[in-house]
């Protein structure tokens, strides 16, 4: 498994990095901290 990943997906972290940046910009414009804070606020309001 390790050898397969090293051989075929040696630069997969760059892909993950790019996807992460796009996902954060599109769905979490205030970043992880802003997203978590909004979720907590919504949860508290629902209670």
């Amino acid at each position: 498994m390790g050898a397969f990943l090293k051989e075929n997906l040696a630069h997969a972290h760059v892909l993950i990095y790019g996807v992460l940046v796009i996902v954060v910009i599109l769905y979490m414009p205030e970043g992880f901290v802003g997203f978590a804070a909004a979720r907590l606020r919504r949860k508290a309001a629902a209670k």
Partner: protein
Amino acid sequence: MKATLLAWGLPLVALLFLPLWITSPYALHIFILLFIAIATGESWNVIGGFAGQYSVGHAAFYGLGAYGAFILLQDRHVAPWFGVWVAVAIAAAVALAIGSITFRLRGPYFVLASIAVAEIIRLAALNWKDLTNGAEGILASDLPPLQLGNRLITDWNSKIPYYYMGLAMAVFSIGVNFAVKKTKLGYYLQAIREDQDAAHSLGIPLTVTKNIALVISAACTALAGSFAAFYIGFIEPQQVFGLDVSVQMVLVAIIGGIGTVSGPLIGGVVLVLLSES
């Protein structure tokens, strides 16, 4: 308040004692990279997060910090712990000059101007071979040992002194963010971020306030740049003045949470772990 102190204090105490348990040089290397990412992200956050001025040319200050301290060591034999402060002062002075010109611009025009300034400084470093050694770069040799009186503190042969210096630098940057956020300057910057014209109409001096934020941000970035350069032991223009250095700082803040103190910390953890995986 108590919860905030606990949330920041407990991880800090754990990090202070971490090298007692973790002795692997690779693990310590990851932590040092993490501290550099946090320090640069927090530094950028002062101008980009609080003031909303998206500078994509912060590599200029990072590189000035790195080159300033390195050149003082190689050419004038000034020990890094003194040379670093001179480099920080140079970066702050350059930031003041750059800010006075580029803060006349807003939005995407400011972003482009900040990139252009960083490129000008990179090209100057690349071509001023007598001072910077051009594309060949500078290798740090003979880093003098740190002594207090006659007592040797460290000779820089292990990663542990770099770990503690990196931790101190990251904590300092976080402290600067807290200080800026809680003072009048922080409120001014947030007002400017939300609506520059409204802030101006309320009597907030736009250029002066943004310049102060840029100088603070540049000084912290230069400090991180100096530290990173001495840790790596080699610098060349593309490595410290490159656009990718600026983008890395911006991404750390954006992914973690822009305009928050804990955001660049989270962003730094995510990006360093990802790039080192």
